C-alpha cells in the first residue's frame, strides 16, 4: 500500500499520477475464511479492521452486495457526537468519538474529522431539564458536555434566531468535541486498511443464504458461489431483517426511510452542528459549503432508498424558523436511506441463536457517529465469542428481558 502524504502527491505530480495503485484490491473470493463480515459499510469494514488490528485475525472477507459504503455510510448527515444519556450508549459513542479523533492518522487516509462542536437546542422548559440531566450524566460518563446560555448559542451560531415566535431558544447542550467527518472517506479508509492487511473486500457479491451445520454457521451462499467461514458477522443495517431471516432467526427491528437534503453551496456561515429536537430538524455546513439538513423518518416501514416529501417540508419549516436566513437558499438534492430501528432506538451488537454468527445492527438514525466504536466492540465479540463491556448491554435478547437502553428519553429526533 502506498503511503499517503503531501510528499507522495508531489512526487506523483511529476509522473502524471501514474504511480497510484488501487486503494483496495478487488479479489475473487477464496473457498473459505476465518471470518466473513457481510456488509462493507462503515460498521462492517470497521469490524474487519479491528479484527485484524486488535486480534490479528486477517483471514477475513468483507462481502458487499453493491459498492462499498453505498448504504447509510454514504447517505448520512455525518454528525459525530457522544452526548447520550444512558451509560451504555455514552460509553460506546464516546469510544467511537475518541477513535474518530485519530482515525485519519491511524488509517493514513484523511477522513476530515472536524471537531467543530455539536449543540442540541433546548426550546421548552421540559427539554431544558432533559439536557441538564444529560449534562449531569455526561459528567459522570467522561463525556465533555456543557449546557450553554442563549447568548453563548448566538455567539457560536450567528445565523440562529433565538426569539422564534413559537419556540424561543432557552439554551443548548454543547459538545465542543463533537463534529462531522467525510462519510465516504471513512469507508474508503477502512477498506484500504483492510485490504492492506490482506483481507478481501468483495463488492458486487450478494449473500443469498446462510449455511450451517449442527447449529453452527458454516458459510454463506452468494452470487459468487458458496464461501465458507468459521465465524460470521452480519453488519447490514437496513437489510438486517433479511439476513437474519437467512440465518434462521428474527430481529426486533423495523426498517424505515430516513430523509435528508442539502442546499446549494455557499460561503461559510455556520461552523457548528445544530440540532433542534423540539421542532425536528438539524443542520450543519459541509466543507464544500452545502447546508446539510436532516429531519424525520418516514412514518411507514419500507426499503425504498428514496426521498419522500412531507417530512422535507416539516424539517425545512422548522429550520427556516430557527435560521431565517436560509429562506432564499435553494435545496439541491434530497435522498433517503434505510435505517433499522429497534424498539428502544439503541443498537444491537449480539450473539444470535445461530452459533458463531454475530449481528451488529439497529443503529437507526445515528449510526455514522458510532462507526469506529461499533466496529471495535463487534470485533471483540466476533474474536472472543463473548461481548466485551462496550457491547454487553446491547444484546438482541434485551427486548425479551425488558432491559431497554432507551435514548428517546433524551433525543426524540433523528440524527
Amino acid at each position: 500500500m502506498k503511503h499517503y502524504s503531501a510528499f507522495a502527491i508531489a512526487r506523483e505530480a511529476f509522473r502524471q499520477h501514474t504511480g497510484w495503485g488501487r486503494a483496495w484490491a478487488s479479489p475473487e473470493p477464496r473457498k473459505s475464511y476465518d471470518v466473513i463480515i457481510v456488509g462493507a459499510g462503515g460498521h462492517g469494514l470497521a469490524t474487519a479492521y479491528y479484527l485484524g488490528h486488535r486480534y490479528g485475525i486477517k483471514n477475513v472477507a468483507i462481502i458487499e452486495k453493491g459498492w462499498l459504503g453505498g448504504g447509510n455510510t454514504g447517505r448520512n448527515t455525518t454528525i459525530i457526537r457522544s452526548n447520550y444519556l444512558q451509560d451504555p450508549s455514552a460509553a460506546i459513542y464516546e469510544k467511537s468519538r475518541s477513535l474518530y479523533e485519530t482515525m485519519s492518522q491511524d488509517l493514513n487516509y484523511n477522513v476530515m474529522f472536524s471537531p467543530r462542536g455539536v449543540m442540541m437546542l433546548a426550546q421548552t422548559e421540559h427539554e431544558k431539564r432533559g439536557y441538564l440531566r444529560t449534562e449531569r450524566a455526561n459528567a459522570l460518563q467522561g463525556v465533555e458536555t456543557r449546557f450553554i446560555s442563549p447568548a453563548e448559542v448566538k455567539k457560536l451560531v450567528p445565523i440562529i434566531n433565538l426569539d422564534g415566535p413559537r419556540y424561543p431558544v432557552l439554551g443548548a447542550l454543547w459538545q465542543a468535541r463533537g463534529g462531522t467527518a467525510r462519510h465516504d472517506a471513512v469507508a474508503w479508509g477502512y477498506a484500504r486498511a483492510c485490504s492492506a492487511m490482506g483481507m478481501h473486500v468483495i463488492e458486487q457479491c450478494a449473500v443469498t443464504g446462510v449455511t450451517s451445520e449442527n447449529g453452527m454457521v458454516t458459510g454463506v451462499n452468494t452470487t459468487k458461489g458458496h464461501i465458507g467461514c468459521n465465524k460470521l458477522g452480519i453488519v447490514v443495517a437496513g437489510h438486517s431483517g433479511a439476513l437474519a431471516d437467512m440465518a434462521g432467526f428474527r430481529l426486533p427491528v423495523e426498517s424505515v426511510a430516513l430523509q435528508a437534503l442539502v442546499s446549494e453551496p455557499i460561503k461559510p456561515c455556520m461552523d457548528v452542528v445544530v440540532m433542534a429536537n423540539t421542532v425536528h430538524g438539524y443542520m450543519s455546513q459541509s466543507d464544500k459549503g452545502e447546508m446539510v439538513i436532516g429531519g424525520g423518518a418516514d412514518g411507514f416501514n419500507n426499503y425504498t432508498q428514496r426521498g419522500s416529501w412531507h417530512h422535507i417540508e416539516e424539517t425545512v419549516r422548522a429550520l427556516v424558523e430557527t435560521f431565517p436566513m436560509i429562506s432564499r437558499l435553494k435545496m439541491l438534492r434530497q435522498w433517503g436511506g434505510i435505517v433499522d430501528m429497534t424498539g428502544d432506538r439503541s443498537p444491537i451488537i449480539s450473539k444470535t441463536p445461530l452459533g458463531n454468527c454475530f449481528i451488529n445492527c439497529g443503529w437507526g438514525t445515528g449510526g455514522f457517529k458510532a462507526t469506529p466504536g461499533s466496529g471495535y466492540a463487534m470485533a471483540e465479540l466476533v474474536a472472543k465469542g463473548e461481548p466485551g463491556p462496550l457491547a454487553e448491554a446491547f444484546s438482541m435478547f434485551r427486548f425479551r428481558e425488558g432491559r431497554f437502553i432507551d435514548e428517546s428519553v433524551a433525543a426524540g429526533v433523528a440524527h
Partner: protein
Amino acid sequence: MSHRLKTGGRLIDRSRDVKFTFNGKHMKGFAGETLAASLLANGQTLLGRSFKYHRPRGIVASGAEEPNALVGLGKGDRYEPNQRVTTTEVFDGLTCETQNHWPSLDFDLLAVNSLVPQFLTAGFYYKTFLRPRAFWKHVYEPVIRKSAGLGKAPSPDARDPDSYEQIYAFCDVLIIGGGIAGLQAALSAAETGARVALWEQTAHWGGRAPVDGVTIDGQDADAWVAATIAKLEAMDNVHLRLRCMGAGVHDHGYVLGYERVSDHAPGTDAPRHRLWRMRAGQIVTATGAIERPLSFAGNDLPGVMLASAVRDYVVNYAVSPGQSVVVVTNNDDAYRTAIALRQAGVGVPAVVDARAEANGPLVAEARAAGITVLTGKGIRKVKGGKKVTGVEICRIDSKGTAFTEVFDCDAVAMSGGWSPVVHLWSHCGGKLVWDDTHHFFRPDASRPPLGADGAGFVRACGSADGEMGAVLMGAHEAGLAAAKATGASGTPPAPATDQVPDMAPMDAVWMMPRNAEYDLRMKMWLDYQNDVKVSDVQLAAREGYQSVEHTKRYTTLGMATDQGKLSNINGLAILSDALGQPIPATGTTTFRPPYTPISIGAIAGGATGPVFQPLRRTPLYDWHAENGADWEPVGQWRRPYTYIRAGEDRHKAVNREVTNARTNIGLLDASTLGKILVSGPDAGRFMDMLYTNMMSTLKPGKCRYGLMCNENGFLMDDGVVARLSDDAFLVHTTSGGADHVHGWMEDWLQCEWWDWKVHTVNLTEQFAQIAVVGPKARQLLERLGGMDVSRDALKFMEWSEGRLGGFDARVFRISFSGELSFEIAVPASQGRAFWDRLLAEGADLGVMPYGTEALHILRAEKGFIMIGDETDGTVIPQDLNLNWAISKKKDDFLGKRGMEREAMVHPDRWKLVGLETLDGSVLPHGALAVTGGKTANKQAETEGRVTSTYYSPTLKRGIAMGLVRHGPNRMGEVLEFAGPNDARIKARIVDPVLYDKEGAKQDV
C-alpha cells in the same frame, strides 16, 4: 466579443429597454430575454470563477443545465446566491454580482490554484493534510472552507420579506414540458376529456422546435405552437402553467411543481414562488434533451458554449457569443448552429467534425452556405486566458502532439450529442436503457416507475424519450395512452406532422483527440463547476474507485449545483473507457429530486413565523397575557409559567402563588388538560384495556385516577377518569399527551379492536377548565351558588353537573395539590366570563391565579408524580410505588405482559423516594447519586437520580423526588449527588409525601 445582432430575436421586445446592474456596472437589455442574453449582449463573457481552481468561467448553456454562470441576485433581505443567469428573466432594477473570487472577478488571487493542477488532483485531500493532527481543525479546514462554497451567504440577520405559497392539486394527466411534444401530448390527452395539467419551466411555450427550424404541416413551428396553445386555453379541462418546473416525481403520482410566480416581476403582491403538490393519475414527461459538451483541452474558457445554446442566443435573443465562432461536433445537429450563425451574419471559420465523413442534409446546407467543414478532426486545444482567442485543430485519432490547423475565433460552439432529460422518469424508479444509435440513456418503456396497482404511471415522449426525429405522433400516442390509463375514453383527432431533416448517425467521441496526452487530458473539463477533468476520472478508475458512485464521490463529478446535467454521460464514458467496459455496464448515478434547485422558502411555504405550528390558546389566553404571564410552551399551547408582578422575579412570583394556594385560593387555567370522551357499549371493556387499573367498575358520578402504559409497560400518561354514564367515560390526560393519547386510542380501535363498539372524541378545546384550589375554595363556589358543593353532596373523587353561578358547569372534586380543590369545566365560550367571575367574587378571599411552576411545586410537596418528570419512557408504575393502581383482577391490559419481564420485576430497579439535602439547598436538575465505584466502561457508577427538584416555599427548603436503587428500603440513608463542577451534594432519602401525609386537607 459577444454582441447584440441588428435584427432578429423571436422572444425579445426591442421597444422595451430593461436596465440592470452587473457588479455595480449599469447595463441594458431587452424585455423578454434572460439575464444571460442581456449580459452577452453587453459583451460580458466572464461571469464567474470555478469552485476549486477559481478558473475564469462564462456561460456554457442557455437553460437549467448551466453550471458556470451563477450570480448573487438582489440586495439585502432579497439577496439570493447562486442564481443561474440562464434561467433568470431580466427585469428593470435587477442587480447582480459575480461569485467566488477575491478580490475581483477579473483578478482572482485564488486562481493560483489553477497554476498547480497537477497537485490538486481528484481526491488529493484524502491523501494529505494529515499531520499534524490539530492542523485539520485549525488550519487546513478553515482555509478549504473559505475557498470552497460558491455564493456569499445571506446576512445572518436576513429576513426574507417575500411570501411563498403551496397548493394541492389533482389531475388525470400531468404533462411536464411545454415543447411541441408536451403540447401535443396535452392536446391529445385533453381531447379525450381527461383533466390535464401542463407545466413548462421557461416563460415560453414551444421548446426547441422553433429555434431548430422544425416545420409542422408545412408551417413554422411557432404558428403551430400558438394555435395549439389557443386550443388548450379554450378547454375547461386543461390547466396551463408557465415558469413551472416539474421538480420531483414521488410515489403514487405525487409530483412537485416549482412555479416561479414573480421572480421576473418583483414588487407585486403575488407570492414569489408557488409549490404545486400535484397528485396525478398519469404523468407524461416531455422534458426534452440536453446537449453534451465535448472534452478537449481548454473547453472551459469563457466563449466555449454548447452549440444549441449558441443557436438559442442567436435565434431567440439576437445575441451572438462572438464575432467569429468555430463549431466543433460529432453529429449533424450542430450544423444548425453554423447555419444560424451564418444567416445572422456571424463569421464561422469552420465546422470541425470528428466523424470521418459528414454528409447529411444539414451538412450539405452548411457547405452550400460556404462554410468550411473539416472532418476527422478535433480541437487540440482552445487558446486564450480569460476568453477564447482561437483554436488549434488536430486529427481526431492522434495524440494531439501537434496541430494541423489554427483558427482565430472568439467563441466555440460544441456539440457532443444529446442526452434525454430522464430525471423525472427516474426519480421514482423508472429504469433506463442505452441507445447505441444516439449514444445516450433513454427511458426503458418496459420498466417504468410503478404505482400501487403495479402498473407504470410515467411515460416519456419527444426527445425526453430519446426520439430525435419527428415527435408529434409519439407524443400524441403518449398523451392518449396516459389519458386512457386514467379511464378516459374519447378519441382525439390525429396529430399534425412535424418535418425534421434526416440526420446521419453521430460518432461516439468523448474526448478529442481520442488518444490525447496527459497534459491535454488535464485541461479537459467534464464537470465545469466542480473542476473535474478527464484526468481526474481516469485517476479515480486507476485507484479502484470504479463504481460510478465511487467515481462521483471521489472526484465530485456531477455533485455541483447542476447535478451533472452536462457532465454525467461524458464522465461515464471516460470511466467506462478507463475500465474497458461498455457504458451501460457502468450505469448511472441516481437521479434525485429536485430537477433543479428549488427555494427553501417555497418548501417552507406559508407556514412560517407566527403560523409555524399554529399556537393553541385557551379561552383565558388574553387574560394571562394582560396579567404578566411569563409564557412556557407546552406542546403547541402556551401556558403561564407564572404571573410576574411589579418588583418580582420568577422565583418570587412562583413562591407567592404557591403560598397563596395553600392559604387562600389559587386559580389554575387547566384548559389544556386533555379531555377525551370515550363512549359506546364496549367503552368499559376498552377502558380496562387502556388503563392499568379497573375502570369498568367505576360508578357514574365517580372519578378515578388511572395510569396508562405502552406495550412495554412503561408509564405513558395519567389522569382522572370520570364516568359520565353507563356507556360513557371522560378521560383526562396530561396537557402534552392529549393528542398522542387520542391517537393511541384510535390506533388500537382502528387496527386491533376494530369490532369493538367504542367511539372517541377529543373534546379538549370544547371546555375551559379551571382548578379552584385552596382552603377557601368551597366558600368561593358557594358564593357563586346554584350547586351543592358541600363535603357530603360532592365527595372527594366525585363529580356533578349543574348551573354554577349561572354557568353550565361540570364540577370535579379532585386535587393535584393536596388542598381542597375543585376542577370546573364550563363550555369554552363561557370560560373567560367564568374566570372573571371567580376573580371578582373571590377578591376578598385572596383568590389569585397560579402558573405551571406553582402547579409543579404544589404537587411535588404532596409527592404526586408528574408524567415527563418522574417518568421518561423507561419507568414502570411499580417504580413509582403505584402498584395499587395496577389491577390484579384483569386478565389483560396494555403493558401487562411488558411489565412482567425479567428486568421489570428485578429487585434492583430504581424506585421513587423523596430527597432532602442536608443543607436545605435545591438539588440540581437530573443530578445522579454516585456510589464512588466505576463501571466496566470506567464510568462513575450511579445508584439513583433526581427526577423533580424545587424550592418549597411551604417547607422553606429544597425538596426533590428521585429514583433510587432499593430506595424505599433505605429511608433515612444519605446519598451523594454529583452536581456541577464536581460538587458533591448530600441528600437524605425521605418519604416523597412531604406535605399533609394524612390527606386531611384535600378531604374537608
